């Protein structure tokens, strides 16, 4: 174990588990995949058809590369499954066999119904601020999050946030998460469900599976809902892009910053947006050598300060370059990079080879829109926001009255706007629930004014601003969209079952 300059890792109790017949040491509170990475396992499944080895990609339960058999339950995402004493893990070398001749875990699931004012799905920056804002107004809140710890992607951010008024300027991401978690624990108006998944909107309510401490199937009957499900990382097309050792930049952050496990020794980072730049710096902090950052466009995508930091530490940034091929039999051994012309075609003869065991893709995020789409929100494809997002009003209400969206799920931006949107959505929900007053609505106007007329005026946020403008409609326009969709034969929910 090396010593990290920023984070002091608080390890849980030492436990042992069974990995394919091998006794493996782990710390309580880790995910299974982390414990395996720590002993050098980097292949977590094989593709069913061609038996290609697959590594981990997202590390936050959003992709399918780590589906494993846990205590003989197949297709379990071990990146969000906490490790337990004595648990038996097997990797899946083909489609798993599911015929069980043993007591079934599922028999212990308890059922419950819960009436709350406001259900918040997702406990990242948007969800945490939404919960705190609503709870201080007296709203009874249930907060559901898939992670073991609240904070979403904040918990793996070691850099200091830039000062935006009172939005944690100078504070490191994981410290913000700790601070907000404490506040939330202290609030008597917020019920927190960790390791819990909201699996859908139904006529009868919103279904949530809570896994720990005991398995529960809860049907929430909220009067309003805010969806803050965040985003997932994009992949990139190139030869052998599924080799173990190629992962999302956020996946590597989870390993090294949340759990203190080195994702590799020598890395190539693809993409020079803020995520690519910050992860490069964090890799250096974690003792990983960064051989290069490649960027297909002609300019650096992220903030200048972040770029300056890594360049100062000797990391070359190749503009107009991208990865075209990974080489290796069971793990990445080499990455081939090529120069690209203005039409984004590779230029022959410009190949460079990098001897690396880690390729991090920082090529953009897409909103985790699935539950919004399932709920029946009118969705729109907006490239500037990373893909499909729900149409919403200025006050962040979607086409379903009483259903709000905030943060990256509303379109990719960054943490500061997620905090602000969380607050705006909470005030809007509180207004709908009858908790509003003139002071509160004035505060919402101030927040929106700051967000649109100051914060989003920065040139690096220009793209997101353009996208958010496209996704934001007036209440009258929302009504028109809705009528048009109905005319096209879509059976869209109008009045939410949740609101009387």
């Amino acid at each position, binding site marked *: 174990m090396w010593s990290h300059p920023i984070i002091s890792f608080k390890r849980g109790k030492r436990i042992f588990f069974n990995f394919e017949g091998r006794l493996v040491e782990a710390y309580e509170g880790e995910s299974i995949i982390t414990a395996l990475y720590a002993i050098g396992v980097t292949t977590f499944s094989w593709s*069913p058809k061609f038996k290609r080895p697959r590594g981990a990609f997202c590390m936050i339960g959003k992709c399918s590369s780590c589906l494993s058999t846990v205590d003989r339950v*197949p297709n379990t995402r071990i990146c969000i499954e906490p490790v337990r004493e004595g648990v038996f893990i097997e990797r899946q070398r083909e489609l798993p066999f599911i015929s069980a001749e043993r007591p079934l875990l599922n028999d212990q699931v308890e059922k419950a119904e819960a009436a709350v004012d406001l259900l918040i799905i997702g406990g990242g920056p948007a969800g945490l601020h939404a919960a705190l804002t609503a709870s201080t107004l007296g709203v009874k809140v249930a907060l559901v999050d898939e992670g073991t710890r609240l904070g979403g992607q904040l918990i793996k951010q070691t850099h200091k946030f830039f000062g935006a008024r009172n939005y944690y300027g100078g504070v490191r991401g994981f410290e913000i998460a700790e601070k907000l978690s404490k506040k939330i624990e202290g609030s008597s108006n917020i019920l927190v469900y960790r390791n819990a998944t909201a699996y859908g909107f139904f006529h*009868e*309510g919103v279904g949530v599976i809570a896994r720990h401490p005991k398995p529960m199937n809860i049907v929430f009957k909220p009067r309003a809902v805010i969806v803050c499900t965040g985003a997932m990382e994009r992949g990139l097309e190139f030869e052998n892009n599924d080799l173990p050792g190629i992962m999302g930049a956020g996946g590597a952050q989870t390993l090294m910053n949340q759990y203190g496990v080195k994702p590799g020794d020598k890395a190539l980072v693809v993409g020079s947006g803020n995520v690519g730049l910050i992860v490069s710096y964090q890799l250096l902090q974690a003792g990983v050598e960064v051989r290069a950052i490649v960027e297909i466009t002609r300019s650096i995508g992220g903030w200048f300060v972040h770029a300056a930091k890594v360049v100062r530490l000797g990391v070359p940034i190749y503009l107009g370059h991208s990865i075209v091929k990974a080489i290796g039999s069971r793990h990445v051994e080499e990455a081939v990079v090529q120069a690209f012309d203005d039409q984004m075609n590779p230029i022959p003869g410009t190949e460079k080879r990098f001897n690396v065991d880690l390729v991090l893709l920082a090529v953009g995020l897409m909103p985790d829109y699935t539950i919004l789409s399932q709920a029946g929100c009118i969705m729109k494809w907006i490239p500037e926001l990373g893909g499909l997002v729900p149409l919403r009003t200025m006050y962040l209400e979607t086409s379903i009255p009483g259903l709000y969206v905030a943060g990256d799920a509303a379109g990719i931006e960054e943490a500061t706007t997620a905090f602000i949107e969380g607050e705006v959505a909470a005030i809007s929900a509180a207004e709908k629930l009858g908790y509003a007053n003139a002071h509160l609505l004035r505060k919402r106007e101030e927040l929106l004014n700051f967000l649109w007329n100051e914060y989003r005026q920065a040139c690096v946020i220009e793209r997101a601003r353009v996208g958010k403008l496209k996704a934001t409609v007036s209440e009258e326009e929302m009504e028109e969209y809705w009528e048009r969709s109905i005319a096209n*034969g879509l059976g869209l929910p109008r009045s939410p079952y949740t609101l009387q």
Partner: protein
Amino acid sequence: MIIGGGSVGLMISYYLLKKGVKSIVIERKYPGSGNTYKCATGIRASFTSKEHIALMKRSIELWSELRDELGVFYERSGYLWLLSREEDLRTFKTYVSFQNELGIPTKIIDLSEVKCLAPTIVIKDLLAAVYDPLAGKASPFDLILQSWRLLVEKGCKVLAGVEAKKILLSKKGILGVETSAGFIESSTVVLATAYDTVKLLEPLNISVPIEPVPKHAFITEAYRDLFKPLIIDWTTSSYIVQTPHGNFLVGSEIPERPSDKLLNRLEFLRKASKVWTKYFPWMKEAYLLRYWTGYYDMTPDHHPIIGPLDDLEGLYIAAGFSGHGFMMSPSVGEVIADWIAEGRPRVPEALNLSMSRFKKGKLIKEIAVFG
């Protein structure tokens, strides 16, 4: 011109092409997006009317051809009806002898045979089962994508994102169709438009007796092959089938009224899970991937409306399949192509299925509308 790019519309275009007739298909969203991609994928001829049986026997022959010609996944892996009540067993004995007379090899089997066909099944509440070895399943995605590709290759047009607005008439017959992409001229128009047939024919004062009834289905993640047949639990009106990818596709009846909105209901998930975890306890640990809703387009006698309209030359209907559109699409495609190119269908029983039967009061009766 064919309105509707589902399995029925594309198969009509496909069999017209085989007769040397090039057609144009228009589809409001994208091919398959209506009912085809939502279907249970089962294919069987074990029905209880001679019309259904005749059409489906032909369809089963054609499904094999489609597998060879287009590479569509199709296998004769059977249907299995689970029976747990004495009265159901008696009824099914009647069905089986009727089907056997018409050449469909269904048979009553005992529980040890059920165990062979579905090794992990818990049989304790069962009496017996009916097995149809001629039945099977196919991939709706293959059928749509492969036939679409071939049609385009051979010079037919399949226009996605084009919606039919109005059928325009002249004194002699049909002039063409006004669409969201402008007027398309055609003296022959086929409506393969499921429930929308009602709306398209309303302005022509033709009322079509189709009612949409909401249905629900879910699919799990992929697992290794556990059983081949499509299994129906007759008592609870539920089905389960494993797709070629390994996912379990499950449906189950819950109370729904015609024309009800499509709503996601926990009631469905609860019932479907209860039924199938009883037979297959391991299902408790299968992860659900998706849940969707769709319509069965029901006619008064649960048989499709196929064929020309008596009083409007050039206009054909292929709709109201009452839950069997995908499995019937090859023979319906062929029958409509026959009618257009040669004036009569090769399966004579199809003559009983035109719109005029409702006027004449010659409805067809079938009890086993399922799957």
